């Protein structure tokens, strides 16, 4: 079963994302900040990460940089999400190693299409 780590400081967003992604047959784990997410990744790297941009302790950009600096056999696909649609921020995230971007609030169709786009069907 494919695994996906949902990283967001909002419990509501994590709950919505879990419900949608379980529909794609992902086994979901959750982290509420970047530091917790990195700890979980070091223990077991997921196939995909849905990553919030603005979080306490360690934000999405720092997580991406740390994640992409790890020696990985198979890097996880990262879809990052934010409440902003600022081109500079999207560009920064893509350059830091995100595979796709989705703006909050998202619905099931959009989130699923983003996961399809990065090859996670």
């Amino acid at each position, binding site marked *: 079963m494919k695994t996906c780590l949902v990283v967001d400081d909002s419990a509501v967003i994590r709950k919505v994302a879990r419900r949608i992604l379980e529909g794609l047959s992902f086994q979901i784990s959750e982290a509420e900040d970047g530091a917790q997410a990195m700890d979980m990744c070091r223990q077991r790297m997921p196939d995909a990460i849905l990553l919030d941009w603005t979080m306490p302790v360690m934000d999405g950009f720092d997580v991406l940089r740390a994640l*992409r600096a790890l020696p990985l056999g198979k*890097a996880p696909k990262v879809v990052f999400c934010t409440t902003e*649609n*600022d*081109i500079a921020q*999207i*560009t920064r995230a*893509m*350059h*830091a*190693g*995100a*595979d*796709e*971007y*989705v*703006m909050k609030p*998202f619905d099931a*169709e*959009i989130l699923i*299409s*983003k996961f*399809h*786009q990065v090859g996670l069907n």
Partner: protein
Amino acid sequence: MTESEFAWLCAFLRRRSGLALSAQKRYLAEGRLGAVCRRHALPDLCTLVHRLMAGDRRLETATVAAMMTNETLFFRDSYPFASIRDLVLPTLQSARRAERVLRIWCAAASSGQEPYSIAMLIDEVRPILPGWRFEILATDICDDMVERGRTGLYSQFEVQRGLPTRLLLKHFTRDGERWRLSERIRQLVTFRTHNLLEPCQHLGQFDLILCRNILIYLDRPTRGTVLDALHRQMRPDGFLMLGATETAQGVSDLFEADPNRRGLHRSSIAGARAVRGETVMRPAALSSAPLRARPSVPGSAPRPPLRLVTRTTANG
């Protein structure tokens, strides 16, 4: 709206747009045309129908437009674009190497996401096709949709549906709350209003025609009429792309489906004969011939695909 008024409305829609509206879909007409009534300050649907009967052209246009389903998104279904990238363009690259012109027609373009998706795909192959001219014609029955497509402006919701972020960043800029498509991509596409039931010879001939998710709304005879018209506008060795749930099989003898590429059709042997002006016989046996066995279609032999960059990310 009485039964006879509804029957008249169905006949009107069939005549004007080919839309086959059944009694089971009456709720759809009432919902969508209720909005037309409100917009034009008409008290009820009966009044609307009587104004249509009287030949009110403005309301005719509004009624047909309201009944169309304009659902579309960038790179919808993804597989047609893979077929175009991996088979259609390489085949046409070989077949048109002397003239170096490709003409593509999106025959039910709605608000433009499909033709612009094709344009973005074309933009990827431009570097390996120097000196080629690409023309993408986008037509739709609704003036409003054509005008929307022409603007190249899309909402956040629309750019999130199907459009890879890489292409969003490459081809779009922010324009207030919306996203504006670059002039580089927009200039590849020409928009115009066109009703598929009306003559289309003036549009010229095309190497690839996309007519997706429109036949499903038409009755069988109208589907045949539309497919015949599309065949006349398709070059003999060209391609037709229909929607995921659509096929020419059983409707038109002029096309045969590629068994390996969903929605993709080419001219059948009967279709080739029709182009040559020969009498077309019922081709039940002929139309089952595999696509690759047709020597009259140049460039149909398998060729190495064009080397296209379909997605690039910082990590590979």
